[in-house]
């Protein structure tokens, strides 16, 4: 692990001498793509970060939103892709640990975890199945032990992730505004390292994550210990309440190197520290190892001498170790010593700010003909096809996954996983709705439109619970940025997300960029993930049941946009065609009108139409609420499409609304007034899911039979292949 040659020259020039070995290690960690964002930082500035509810403070690792009545929520997203691809259990677990500490470092209690998981084709690829199974177990064991509910997420399988894994973890925190830690420090303050001992695990982890995955570097993978993390959470929150913390920083990628240099840089101070004071797990660790170890469950605290005794007492109570490793200086230098000997002495702004790059970009050649469709084999029996479709890993219920996560602990979970978005109750009587979404199949065909689609889909999901989107998290995962074609896809996605965020005035409150997601077999498809936080002032839409005679209304137009659809890719094994695009105006009108009718209490259930199209969305409602329905496809607003396109197009801005017949008139009046495209397309009842076109039956599924398959197929596949 070392600097690139140009960067070595750059460093030498900046400090006016040859760097020491420890300095090289520190800078290599901090200047890695993972820590420095050197390829992306210039461009990320385009994202809107401000908004009426956003609270920004220096040095925060998570975004903060004011939810009123003196309360705030915090949110952050991280990934742990490289480690999870090598050691899925530990990689995924430590991914949870890291994002939780980001929430903690603002001084808020973590109250929810989300995860987005992506693996290869688990139907055929046993290695992908192994990765999937163990990543889920890693997240479950870590989050469950912490007592933080894992309340939502998404799982997707695609051949582009073969021999690889994308493990994204988002977390939400909650607390009183007055308890937020306002990072500050003054000369003479002391620097304390609290938590797990520093060992030789995770050495060079951030550089490992900043390169293509060609070898399994196991020593770069961190080891999880959720029990210590739980103790740290309680100890830190107690210390926060006692006002013992001046500044707080999680140790993540780059270990002490990053935490110390970034804290010093953010607060415009210097820090002098002694590696001999760091409590280590092993004997004879050298300064370089101590500075870049990514051992987990550690926090860096700046406090004053007079508060140390109280802080130590809290640590004693929880039996966690804290060591005073250094103190704050005036000189803006990061001075690392071993006893009396200086190992590194660097200006903090040099360490914390790598020279940013302006990488070249070029439209990928593969996009030239990607929108062309080929002639597909006609489907003879749609019922048979649907049975296969709902059993497919991407469509099947993910209950096998979220059933292993404690999603009730904390007793906030009002809308449980398995619905559009999960909803938590907050202490001020309001509700928080949240969802993360990604769609690499769409993004591969059109990185800009695909990314916008993920954004809109996540918004639709929270809107379906009656929430107004108030903040966004983005996680941009791409291949090797040194490849101009890959970098072009990154920029396109980012521009799309920026445009949508600006149009809808949804600020980006946190994000992460993960590059170099590639293996010797190739690059991953562009995989931006969007997390949306929504706020509900009064009552969330929490569906109890759907009854016979209830009507189903579709809002939005079904268009001829089949590219990247599950139908094309899973059923026809065809990658191509035009992917769904979002018309911003139509999107806004639809979103606002749906939110309006939900808030007015006219709707019993709302469900967004996305992966698998209308056919899957309606079947999901029927299987979830165990009731049949009759749908008339000719009533679906569309562009005179063939029946398979009406059934399986993944056009955006579409919502399914379920309501009692008596409320239909009121609903129609409101929808007409707001000029949205909509129609009543069917009624619930019976024990069969039926799709008809002009009285001809197209699909006929038994609710019981399809429900069993939908709920169990993923579990069967994982456990018994």
């Amino acid at each position, binding site marked *: 692990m070392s600097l690139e040659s140009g960067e070595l020259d750059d460093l030498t020039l900046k400090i006016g001498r040859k760097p020491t070995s420890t300095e090289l290690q520190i800078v290599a960690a901090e200047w890695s793509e993972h820590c420095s964002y050197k390829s992306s930082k210039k461009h990320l500035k385009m994202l809107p970060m401000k908004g009426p509810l956003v609270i920004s403070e220096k040095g925060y690792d998570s975004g903060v939103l004011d939810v009123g009545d003196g309360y705030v929520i915090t949110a952050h997203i991280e990934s742990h892709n490289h480690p999870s691809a090598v050691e899925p259990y530990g990689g995924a677990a430590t991914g949870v640990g890291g994002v939780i500490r980001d929430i903690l470092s603002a001084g808020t209690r973590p109250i929810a975890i989300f995860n987005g998981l992506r693996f290869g084709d688990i139907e055929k690829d046993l290695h992908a199945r192994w990765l999937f199974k163990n990543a889920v177990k890693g997240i*479950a*064991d870590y989050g*469950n*032990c*912490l*007592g933080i509910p894992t309340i939502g997420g998404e799982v997707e399988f695609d051949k582009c992730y073969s021999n690889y894994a994308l493990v994204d973890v988002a977390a939400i925190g909650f607390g009183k505004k007055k308890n937020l830690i306002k990072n500050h420090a003054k000369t003479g303050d002391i620097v304390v390292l609290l938590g797990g001992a520093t060992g030789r695990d995770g050495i060079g982890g951030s550089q490992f994550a900043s390169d293509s995955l060609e070898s399994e570097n196991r020593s770069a993978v961190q080891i999880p*210990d*959720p*029990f210590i993390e*739980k*103790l740290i959470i309680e100890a830190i929150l107690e210390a926060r309440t006692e006002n013992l913390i001046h500044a707080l920083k999680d140790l993540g990628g780059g270990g002490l190197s990053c935490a110390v240099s970034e804290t010093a840089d953010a607060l415009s101070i210097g820090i002098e520290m002694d590696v001999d004071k760091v409590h280590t797990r092993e004997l004879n660790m050298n300064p370089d190892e101590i500075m870049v170890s990514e051992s987990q469950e550690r926090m860096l605290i700046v406090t004053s001498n007079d508060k140390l005794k109280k802080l130590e007492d809290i640590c004693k*109570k*929880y*039996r966690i170790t804290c060591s005073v490793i250094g103190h704050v200086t005036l000189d803006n230098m990061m001075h690392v010593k071993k006893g009396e000997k200086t190992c590194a002495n660097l200006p903090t702004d040099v360490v914390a700010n790598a020279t940013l790059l302006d990488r070249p970009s070029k439209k990928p050649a593969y996009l030239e003909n990607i929108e062309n469709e080929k002639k597909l084999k006609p489907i003879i029996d749609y019922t048979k096809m649907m049975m296969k479709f709902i059993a497919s890993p991407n469509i099947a219920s993910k209950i096998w996954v*979220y*059933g*292993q*996560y*404690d*999603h*009730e*602990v*904390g*007793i*906030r*979970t*009002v809308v*449980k996983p398995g619905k559009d978005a999960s909803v938590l*109750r907050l202490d001020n009587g309001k509700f928080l709705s949240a969802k993360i979404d990604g769609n690499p199949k769409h993004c591969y065909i059109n990185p800009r439109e695909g990314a916008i689609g993920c954004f809109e889909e996540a918004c639709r999901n929270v809107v379906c619970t009656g929430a107004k989107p108030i903040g966004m998290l983005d996680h941009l995962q791409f291949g090797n940025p040194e490849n101009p074609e890959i970098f072009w896809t990154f920029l396109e996605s980012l521009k799309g997300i920026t445009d949508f965020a600006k149009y809808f005035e949804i600020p980006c409150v946190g994000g992460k960029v993960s590059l170099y997601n590639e293996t010797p077999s190739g690059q991953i498809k562009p995989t931006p993930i969007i997390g949306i936080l929504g706020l509900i002032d009064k009552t969330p839409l*929490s569906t*109890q049941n759907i009854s016979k005679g209830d009507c189903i209304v579709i809002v939005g137009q079904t268009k001829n946009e089949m590219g990247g659809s599950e139908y094309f890719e899973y059923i026809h094994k065809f990658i191509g065609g035009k992917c769904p695009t979002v018309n911003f105006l139509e999107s806004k009108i639809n979103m606002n009108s749906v939110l309006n009718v939900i808030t007015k209490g006219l709707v019993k259930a709302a469900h967004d139409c996305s992966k698998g199209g209308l056919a899957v969305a309606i079947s999901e409602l029927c299987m979830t609420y165990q009731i049949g329905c009759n749908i008339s496809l000719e009533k679906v607003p569309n562009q005179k499409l063939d029946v398979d396109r009406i059934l399986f197009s993944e056009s955006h801005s579409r919502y399914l609304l379920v309501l009692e017949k008596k409320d239909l008139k009121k609903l129609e009046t409101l929808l007409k007034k707001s000029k949205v495209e909509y129609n009543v397309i069917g009624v619930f009842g019976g024990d069969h899911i039926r799709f008809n076109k002009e009285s001809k039956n197209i699909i006929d599924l038994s609710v019981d039979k399809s429900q069993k398959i939908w709920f169990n197929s993923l579990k069967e596949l994982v456990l018994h292949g």
Partner: protein
Amino acid sequence: MNVAVIVFPGSNCDRDMYHVLTDVFKLNATYFWHEKGLPKNIDAVILPGGFSYGDRLRSGAIAAHSPIIKDVKKMAEKGVPILGVCNGFQILVEAGLLPGALLKNTSLNFMCEWTSLIVENNTTPFSNKLKLYQKIPIPIANGEGRYYVDSETLKQLKKKNQIVFRYSDTVNGSSDRIAGVCSEDGNVVGMMPHPERAAESQINPNDNKPASLIFESLLNAIGVQN
């Protein structure tokens, strides 16, 4: 009236339990760290769920040796109502206050799902307001939740009316579908499902009244008018 909520390192349902006791049922509750002693004026003791000591060795095995357990045992002898939920149940079993053992679920996985209990004994301090055979919608969340007793002990449990709750369906492979048991005297009760997650309508997708009756039974037992 004073209810003690015991907190072990790694307990994580302590705050949930406290909220339900104080905010929902207006009881006076106090947290007790596992190294503290219990004062004499405690009317009931609750061991909440979570992962004490990170479930190392065996769930509940280390916490069962905490200093506070001595006082819990004394209170148990005195007939004070004691409830262990999930990890709290595991601790009571490891401490020898309740019979049996809790093994890994037959699925070998952590299971978080809503299930339904049947009341088998409505004479304990935590079930006296429930009807015999009444159903309680309630969630479970555990990895080692399969209650196990040998056939001889099972016979004794039945004879002495120590089975308090059964699952209405086979959930995790527990002996005789047992979800909760009590001591011979009936004042110590352990259960795997989480009543504190089911007592409020906002978070209970079914019916929160039956689970509320578990807490109302406690109010009744310790003489609080509600």
